């Protein structure tokens, strides 16, 4: 076969044929494409902020040093990163995986298309609110800042809230699609009751199996109704739903005040108690960090470990029961965000902020242990990219979870709250290294399934991406985190290079992450080609909403109501 020139490969890809993709494959790839475009945007935003913090010698135009500009970037940075990129990628993976693992069609491909469109448009609107009108209350939206019309323009607030509301509507669409698929009584679940599916979804069967084993009785359930990764998706999606409701609720509150202001009515913002609001908002927002991320990640590790090794998961019942435990843990830990708030009752700080939060060390430590032992029992293994990325993900959480637990302490929080420590040593490493490397692993596992065995353009580029990304992500997190130990605040503008040694080092490693992203994107674009990339967004000829189903699937019914 004649070798293609680089230009031909850029246009046509390696051997990717978008016309052969099913509707499910296409909708998955559409969300993946949008996710990585937003990732690029968020990396550029992050680099701009790092460079501003290096001091007056930074080469950026002066306007980037202006507080309005700087904080509008800081406001949209997590919106684009968490919702535009991470949510899209996770939702894409799960809307493919649930049908694949349950051997049932996705409830609605149309709804899946609406999900990525809503999240994309919503993210773009929230971004525009910052870019054009410099609406900058940050993602924390501490009351009454988002309704402070002396500092922000009304139109900016409207556009931002509408953008976030669209993201949350897309999120609810995803949730509906996932649950409707799981509860559809077709295929392997034809004879399962809703009760059986619910028991399995919450991990109760795993716990019952453990109790039965300890009491010497036969297993409660030999064949759980749902596979373990689906249980994690089911369980994490509960938190995704609660989080969406809380963020929508906060959005409605802000919107009411904005509308009143637009109508010339000045309402007392202090009618809403700032502490109560902070508790409500952090309860919901924390479900992203300490609920769905940890649970989705644990589920992804289990799935990846079993696919990579081709073996059963070690201690599966314990893993199922741990997901049930995480249900209670993730709902009760929000107070660790309020350890520096003196009006917060001390008992809530101690119980929710410290003690229950410490259980995350247990649940995440268990997931790490189960994944490592599953891999160990299957050795020798070939060091494939998917295995390497999985180990990278384990490193990320191995670093980030203890960093967070350390700060969730009344003594440490007094000197670490709101510093770059929590921002970088904890959640940037958790997201960039822990979560994304897990997702890259999933991407390489799913790549043959979603693209019909398309040949990757270059394995060398895959490995280059891996090393640059891992070293860059850990290095950036470590050096910026050290700046936090030296007193650098996370939501503060430093224009005189006060912490420039750490910031220059963080910027160097951060640029490695950005270069890695570019290499990854180049490798993917060269694999599918520009024609293929456009083709992903064209309608699919094959309307199949499932993957690998033997026969034409029957139409998915409406979500099944609970059994009488």
């Amino acid at each position, binding site marked *: 076969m004649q070798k293609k020139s680089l230009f031909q490969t850029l246009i046509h890809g390696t051997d990717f044929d978008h016309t052969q993709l099913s509707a499910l494959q296409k909708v998955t790839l559409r969300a993946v494409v949008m996710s990585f475009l937003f990732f690029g945007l968020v990396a550029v935003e992050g680099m701009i902020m790092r460079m501003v913090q290096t001091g007056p010698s930074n080469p950026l135009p002066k306007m980037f*040093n*202006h*507080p*309005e500009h700087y*904080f509008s970037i800081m406001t949209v940075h997590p919106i684009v990163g968490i919702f535009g990129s991470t949510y899209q990628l996770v939702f894409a993976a799960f809307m493919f995986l649930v049908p694949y693992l349950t051997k049932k069609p996705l409830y609605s491909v149309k709804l899946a298309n609406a999900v990525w469109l809503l999240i994309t448009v919503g993210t773009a609107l929230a971004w525009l609110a910052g870019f054009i009108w*410099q609406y900058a209350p*940050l993602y924390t939206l*501490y*009351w*009454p*800042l988002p309704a*402070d019309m002396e*500092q*922000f323009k009304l139109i900016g607030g409207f556009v931002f809230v509408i953008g976030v509301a669209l993201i949350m509507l897309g999120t609810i669409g995803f949730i509906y699609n996932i649950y409707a698929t799981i509860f559809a009584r077709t295929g392997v679940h034809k004879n399962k009751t809703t009760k059986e599916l619910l028991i399995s979804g919450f991990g109760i069967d795993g716990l019952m199996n453990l109790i039965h084993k300890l009491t010497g009785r036969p297993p409660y359930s030999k064949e759980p109704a749902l596979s373990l990764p689906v249980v994690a998706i089911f369980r994490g999606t509960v938190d995704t739903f609660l989080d969406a409701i809380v963020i929508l609720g906060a959005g409605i509150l802000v919107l009411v005040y904005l509308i009143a202001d637009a109508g010339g009515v000045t309402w007392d913002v*202090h009618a809403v108690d*700032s*502490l109560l609001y902070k508790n409500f908002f952090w309860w919901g927002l924390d479900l992203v960090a300490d609920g769905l991320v940890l649970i989705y990640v644990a589920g992804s590790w289990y799935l990846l470990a079993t696919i990579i090794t081709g073996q059963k998961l070690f201690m599966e019942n314990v893993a199922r029961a741990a997901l049930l435990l995480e249900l209670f843990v993730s709902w009760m830990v929000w107070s660790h965000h309020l350890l*520096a*708030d*003196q*009006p917060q009752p001390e008992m809530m700080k*101690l119980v929710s902020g*410290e003690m229950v939060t*410490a259980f995350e060390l*247990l649940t995440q*430590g*268990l997931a790490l*242990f189960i994944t*490592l032992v599953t*891999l*160990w029992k299957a*050795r*020798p*293994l070939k060091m494939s990219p998917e*295995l*390497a990325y999985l*180990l990278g993900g384990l*490193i990320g959480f*191995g*670093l980030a979870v203890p960093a967070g*637990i*350390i700060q969730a302490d*009344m*003594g*440490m929080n*007094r*000197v670490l*709250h*709101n*510093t770059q420590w929590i921002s970088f*040593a904890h959640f940037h490493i958790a997201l960039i290294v822990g979560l994304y490397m897990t997702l890259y692993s999933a991407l390489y596992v799913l790549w043959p399934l979603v693209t019909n065995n398309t040949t990757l353009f270059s394995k060398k580029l895959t490995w280059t991406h891996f090393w640059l990304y891992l070293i860059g992500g*850990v290095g950036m997190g470590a050096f910026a985190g050290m700046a936090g*130990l030296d*007193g*650098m*605040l996370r*939501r*503060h*503008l430093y224009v005189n290079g*006060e912490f420039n040694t750490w910031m220059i080092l963080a910027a160097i490693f951060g640029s490695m992450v950005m270069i890695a992203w570019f290499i990854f994107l180049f490798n993917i674009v060269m694999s599918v080609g520009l024609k293929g990339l456009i083709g992903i967004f064209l309608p699919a000829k094959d309307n199949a909403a499932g993957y690998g189903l033997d026969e034409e699937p029957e139409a998915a019914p409406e979500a099944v109501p609970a059994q009488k």
Partner: protein
Amino acid sequence: MSFATSIELLKFHWAAYSIYALLIVSVIAWFGYNLTRKEKVRSIVRIPFYGYIAFLVAGGVGHHIFTYNAIPWVAEDIMRHDIKADHEYTIAIDKHRWKLPEKPIRFKQGDKVRFNVTSTDLTYGFGLFRKDGTMVMQMQVLPKHKNDILWTFNECGKFDLTSTEYSGPAQYDSETGRDKMWVRDAVIVDCNPKLARN
């Protein structure tokens, strides 16, 4: 072991976490390398499952027990309403401006000081910093709430004050980006030779 000042704690934390970070990266790298080896690998240590769980529980709970005993401001913070302060200062914030009772606020090393800080409009922070930029301590300042912190100043020196919570871009000069809430030498703690640490 105990930490009289936050800088001592931060130095210890820096060292302890760096060692942990190197350890966890090395363990997973070693693990990854051995996953690919064809010959049978002997485990250096065998970690029993329940031992591992006990380690995690001990780590999670023991961490708080350690800090409660080693960091003096933890118990002081919990019991602050029952502790008599040597000095008490009331500070207000309104539209990104501090209203300090005196400038500088001055007292002696070793004194227990209570700061009552209120905000009329937004959520701010109250943070004191050393001249090298490291943080002495901080708390959040919620509007229309009582925000109080009791702190024993075991170190002497001049400390700067700023808001540690973002309260909108109005905190900064719109052209230069200068922090308008930064108060140089807001607190001066005179050294007490009897409390000098070796």
